[in-house]
């Protein structure tokens, strides 16, 4: 059996991925809803900004985040001097990196589920006395919910696998910022680390595939319910 230190990356990955996903869901819903409206000004700008982490090399995104959130950065410096709080090289940094990288994926999935809601249902809701906000919460959001859940699981799986940006922003500190991918990287580079690498590999595959399968099942169920 493996000892607690060897399980640490697994628990940390879970913690990082869970918190990261939790925090990106509300803004992802807001951005996805905006993008699902047919008449939106500044669509190109929003879409480009949101999608950028998907096409930029993760290490570049990580470096940009470090420049911004490191102690010498605009936001990171302010947080350190006023709250004594650090993002870079902490598990929170790992969560930020994972969240930023997973964000476009979640937005895409949620946007699709918003677009699949019949706009005429929203019109019907309005004529029945519901304000646009009321309509959003009582019609649009519940109908998009399975897609939002599926998108969140997809984001969670993406967070579990985040490597490039994490290692730059959070470093690779065992027990603090060393998530599964970082631990695998270290194990591969350590003589005699094959067994540990193999263990983490199996866990990693099980988690990611598990999240993906549940996400797919949710999407399929939604599709069936509508026909």
């Amino acid at each position: 059996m493996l000892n607690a230190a060897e399980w640490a990356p697994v628990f940390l990955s879970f913690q990082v991925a869970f918190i990261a996903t939790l925090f990106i869901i509300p803004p992802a819903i807001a951005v996805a809803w905006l993008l699902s409206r047919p008449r939106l000004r500044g669509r190109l700008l929003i879409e480009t900004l949101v999608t950028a982490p998907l096409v930029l090399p993760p290490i570049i995104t990580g470096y940009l985040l470090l420049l911004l959130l490191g102690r010498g950065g605009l936001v990171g410096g302010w947080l350190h001097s006023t709250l004594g709080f650090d993002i870079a090289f902490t598990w929170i940094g790992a969560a930020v990196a994972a969240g930023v990288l997973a964000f476009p994926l979640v937005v895409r999935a949620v946007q699709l589920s918003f677009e699949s809601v019949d706009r005429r249902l929203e019109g019907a809701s309005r004529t029945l006395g519901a304000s646009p906000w009321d309509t959003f919460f009582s019609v649009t959001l519940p109908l998009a919910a399975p897609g939002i859940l599926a998108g969140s699981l997809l984001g969670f799986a993406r967070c579990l696998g985040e490597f490039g940006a994490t290692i730059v922003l959070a470093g690779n500190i065992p027990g603090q910022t060393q998530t599964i991918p970082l631990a695998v990287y270290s194990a591969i580079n350590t003589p005699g680390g094959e067994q540990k690498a193999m263990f983490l590999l199996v866990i990693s595959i099980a988690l990611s595939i598990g999240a993906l399968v549940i996400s797919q099942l949710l999407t399929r169920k939604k599709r069936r319910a509508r026909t």
Partner: protein
Amino acid sequence: MIEITARKRLADFHLDVEINLPGEPVAVFGPSGAGKSTLLNIVAGLLRPDSGRISIDGEVLFDSAAGIDTPAERRGFGLVPQEGLLFPHRTVRENLLYGYRRVRGRPRTIELNEVAEVLEIGSLLDRYPATLSGGEAQRVALGRALLASPRLLLFDEPLASVDGRLKWRILPYLKLAISHFNLPALYVSHDPTEVTSIASHIAVLHGGRIVAAGPYREIIDLPEVYGIFTREGVNNVLAGTVDANLPEYGYSVVSVGEATFKVALVDAPPGAEIGLAIRANEIIISRGQPGKISTRNVLRGRVAGFANVGSLILVHVDIGCELIVELTHGAATELLLAEGTEIWVLIKSNAFQIHSTLRPA
């Protein structure tokens, strides 16, 4: 009184409409692409016209000049959309109460029990929309609109997605609801039978403009209107009562007003009210009484009026009920028809379209 003027330019189409609704239902008839749904969405507040004015009993809901635009949720107009558009994640009861719970600033005038009774949907309350038939879904959609205690009912082709037979089972519910709750209604459809059954006042929308408005009997004489109605199907719509079913003869006897018709056997017991429709060009006029003839309906009557609709003549005849008959100029000239001329009208029993039960016996 509801007054609507609206102009809206869309990509390939220009709507320019002025229409006034008295307290009674008004039907807007027009072929697809005439702008019916655009008009209805503008009235409902879901689409903003480029310019115009909408008021109900003096209260202005939209006025482009004064910068007034009351949002849809505060107009108090109940919309019955095509395909029902029930909320799929809510039960029938929750759907029905959706607008009811959101009535604000006005008294609730309509209650669930009453609606469930009138529309006969009491047994569906705990079901989900996906399990309803098209007809049931449309009745629930109407109930949902009614329970919002609307000041005006808007029907957007409510029967367009319901197949033929079923249509004539739902139409009576629509008529009943409009009269029972005594609401003004704007009913748009491309189906001549629907519009003539729902409203006595019909506005004809064509190419984004109202080309005629008034009682059917008057507007049908306009060549353009007649053309549109004819392209969309029938032009004589009659409400009758089954007198007898005679399987041994192969027909049923149905009375309409003072007239009695023999029609193909109907699936309704004596006493039932049914709808009959017949095309004006399937009716024959004879100046003399025909001898032995296979045509089952030979009715004596008089010419009540004429109208010139392009290359054809419309003859209004009175045979105990009013019918419109389409003749060529040649036929009309040879028959020497004039107002009051005695004529015989010939109709084959199978020429009638039978619209099932309007109300059970």
